[in-house]
Every structure is written in structure tokens, then in C-alpha cells.
């Protein structure tokens, strides 16, 4: 029993690794996407629109399978055309991080776009009036102020992303869900109700990660709301 629980615990590192890696990718893509959608240049608008529409319109699982298996077949075909026997193998960890990051980048795009639009236009205009460049104004005036508006939705996205990492089981990564499933199957007949016990344990681990991150994010929200008066009636 304990050995199985410990083995599931090992999946914690994989899950956290994939989740944080994907979050970094998603945050970068989200900022880029939001910038593109708000840009005065039409082609960039379209690019941002295509990104957030196409990605959000297709299930995560489909993207995962498409990138990991479809991508691998493509890599193989290219490698074989070049005379190699077998293409380089797409690493499942990298595939998981990139896919989940790519998908949640689209949700982050909308989060950041909304947050940027919540910063009063006058703030940017003040920056421009002082002769700051567009980018400089964004970095020093808009960015620091949008964090407060972005955090609630960012928190939401992070929680969904965290649970979406369970999809990497499909591509063979030993994350919490995968290991719990395997432990449940292996202990069948030895431990009564093994499948349910190990899945419940996996659930507790996810709850633990999300509770800790909720606590940290609430702290961050408080910090970024310093100097903002809460509405009262």
C-alpha cells in the first residue's frame, strides 16, 4: 500500500513540472496574443484572432494527440526523406508542456487583453505625451497596472491548466493520474477498493497543489491591489 502511494507521489514532480512549464509558455503566448489583438496593425489582429479562435475551439486532448503523434509522423517522414532510418523522437514532457502551454496561451490572451483594456486609456496617453515609445509605455505604465485586473482570471486559468496536465497520461508521461491508474490496476485483488483509494489519493494531491497556489495568488492579488480602494455601499 505505502509503496504504491509513494509511487504516485513521484508523479507529483512530473505534474508540477508540466504545469509550471506550460504556465510559462502560456503566459508568454498570452501576452504576445493580447498585444497582437490590441495592435493597430490589422494583420496582427487577424493572427491573434485566428490563434485564440482555433485553439479554444478544439479540445485539449485532440491537440495533444495531434502534436505528439501527428507531429512525430511528420518528423519521421521528413527524416526518412533525408535518408535517416528513424526521426528524432519527440519527448513526451516537451510535447506536454508545449501543447498545454499553447492551448492555455489562447485563454491567457483573452485574460490579458481584458486586463489591458481595463487600464484607463489616459494612462497610456499620458505616457505618449511625455514622449515615451509605445513599447516603453506598455512596459512601464500599462503592464504594472493590468496585473491587478488579470489576476482573478489568471488564477482561474491556472487551476484549469493544472488539471489539464492529467492529459499527459495519454502520451505516456508518469504523472499523478497515470501512476494512480497503474497502481489501482496493479493492486487489484490485493487491496480491496484499490482503484478508488488511489484515485482519491491523486485527487487529494491535485487539491493540495491548487490550495497552495490559491493561497499564493491571493497574496499576490492583495499586493497588486495596494492603494486601491475597495468599493463600498
Amino acid at each position, binding site marked *: 500500500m505505502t509503496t504504491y502511494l509513494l509511487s504516485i507521489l513521484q508523479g507529483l514532480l512530473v505534474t508540477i513540472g508540466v504545469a509550471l512549464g506550460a504556465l510559462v509558455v502560456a503566459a508568454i503566448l498570452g501576452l504576445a496574443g493580447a498585444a497582437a489583438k490590441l495592435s493597430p496593425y490589422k494583420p496582427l489582429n487577424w493572427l491573434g484572432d485566428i490563434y485564440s479562435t482555433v485553439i479554444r475551439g478544439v479540445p485539449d486532448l485532440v491537440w495533444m494527440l495531434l502534436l505528439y503523434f501527428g507531429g512525430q509522423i511528420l518528423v519521421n517522414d521528413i527524416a526518412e526523406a533525408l535518408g535517416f532510418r528513424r526521426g528524432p523522437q519527440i519527448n513526451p514532457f*516537451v510535447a506536454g508542456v508545449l501543447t498545454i502551454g499553447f492551448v492555455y496561451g489562447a485563454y491567457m490572451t483573452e485574460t490579458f487583453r481584458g486586463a489591458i483594456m481595463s487600464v484607463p486609456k489616459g494612462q497610456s496617453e499620458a505616457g505618449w505625451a511625455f514622449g515615451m515609445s509605445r513599447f516603453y509605455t506598455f512596459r512601464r505604465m500599462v503592464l504594472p497596472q493590468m496585473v491587478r485586473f488579470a489576476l482573478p482570471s489568471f488564477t482561474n486559468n491556472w487551476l484549469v491548466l493544472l488539471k489539464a496536465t492529467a492529459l499527459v497520461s495519454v502520451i505516456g508521461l508518469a504523472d499523478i493520474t497515470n501512476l494512480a491508474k497503474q497502481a489501482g490496476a496493479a493492486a487489484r485483488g490485493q487491496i480491496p477498493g484499490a482503484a478508488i483509494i488511489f484515485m482519491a489519493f491523486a485527487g487529494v494531491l491535485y487539491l493540495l497543489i491548487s490550495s497552495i497556489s490559491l493561497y499564493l495568488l491571493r497574496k499576490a492579488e492583495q499586493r497588486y491591489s495596494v492603494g486601491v480602494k475597495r468599493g463600498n455601499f
Partner: protein
Amino acid sequence: MKYALFSLGLIGAASLVACGKSEPPAAPAAPAEAPAAAAAPAPAPSQWPELRVAIDPTYKPFTYKTDAGEPAGFDVDIAKALCDELKSKCVFVEQAWDGMIPGLQAKKYDAIISSMSITEERKQAVDFTGKYYNTPSCVVVKTALNLGAEAAAFKGKKLGVLKASTQEKYAMGELKAAGATIVPYDAQDQVYLDIKSGRLDGTVADVVEVNGGFLSTPDGKDYSCAGGRIPVEFDAKYFGAGAGVAIRKEDTALRDALDAGIKAIRDNGKWKELADKHVPGVDIWGS
């Protein structure tokens, strides 16, 4: 200065609890493998120095992982025996069931040895060796009823089956016509729970599955396979040809070698030794 701090704070917020964690590599960095000379048939010691075998270790006693994390089970031992026959080194690759065939096509591995039933539908995508086992199915009801295996015996009985299984096909095709009520379930474990709660009289299931999942547990002590197993004459119509090794369609040489390997371990007693070790007391070669 203050703004710089704010900007840094945003980066901090973006990566949030990421402090101190190393980021994963940003690009698929696996180096290209050198084109091996073994691509064409060669009189080398082995044509397949390494055989990458996919397993989904969630199907005890055929494929599972020990608590030490080692792959084990009948499938795994058969794979090792076949690798010995091919003078290859077995490398096990874990793959969830959903992605089994796509992974084979994407050359993540060279063979699937994971209790995959040979079906016409799968044959459109991959190729199979002959069977390396074929477990019978049976109708499980209370031992005290003392029923035989023929369909007519189950008139008026309420039986649970796993949706989209070969057992469901048999139950719908034969037992329902004989007057039994068939209830499909999403998972075999739910069937066992409903037998326990009295909603069902029994189930139609794979003999090995039902032994491990129900008959050998305290809940199943009053139950047994009626008449041992479903009559052999229904095998071809409902239950297919058993489990085989799946390979890519173009790998005909590998398929032939594996078929020869299966024949060899059948002949030299290795197969029987492994079957007795993992699934004692049941004939899993089938008819």
C-alpha cells in the same frame, strides 16, 4: 525604480510559484539517431538488435507494474521470450490504451504486446501476428443455481455486461434471444458492484478478468462460471481470434519472425510455463 519593480513583479506573477524551478527545455532536443545499417535485411546476429514494445500496464495479470515500478505480467514475459527468440533486446514503452495504435504508426515503438485483441477493425490500421493467447469468456451466476453453459439456461436472468465488449455482442446475440435481460455498463467494476447490491443476477465476462476482479474476492465467493465457459462454437462468431502482437503493416519480416517466435515458445514449453505462472488453472490458448 518603482516601475521596474512592478514590471519584475509581473514577470513574477506570470511564472508565479515558479521560483527556483528549472524551466523545461524549450524545444524538442532529442538528437537524431544515426541511420542504422540494420534497415535492410542483413545476416547480422539479429535483424532487430532492439525491439521497442508498447504496453499499457493496467490489465492485471497480463500487463501491470509491480509496486517497485517494474513491468510484469503474462504479456511482458511473452514479450521477453519473443525478444529472446529474435535475439533482440526488449525495451518496454508505456503507452495509454487510447494512443496505442497511433503510437505504433508514429514509430514510438515497433510492436504492441498488450493483450490487444485481433479484430477486423484494427487490422485496417495495423498488422497482427497470430494469437499468443485467447481466453474464453463465461456467464457468471450463483453456483447454487447449478446452471449449464447453454444460452437457454439463463432465461429470466438479469446479466450485466461491459459496453462495446465482445461479451456484450454475445449476450445481445444469444442470451437476449433466449430470454435473459442484458444491461450494458461503462466499466466491468460497476457490474460487480451491482451484482453485490442485488440488482443483477450475474455477468458475462472474460474468464481471467472475472476471476481476478470478482470470483477470487469475498463478494464473489458464492458465484462461479456456469458450465465452465461459453460453448466453443460461438468463438468465431463473437469472440474473434484472441490477442496478437500488433506491428506496422510494412514490417512483414518482423511479423514473420514474431510468428515463428510464438510457434517456437509454444513448442519448447516456454509458453506453457508462463501461462501456468500468470494464469494458473485456465487454458488461455483457446481453440
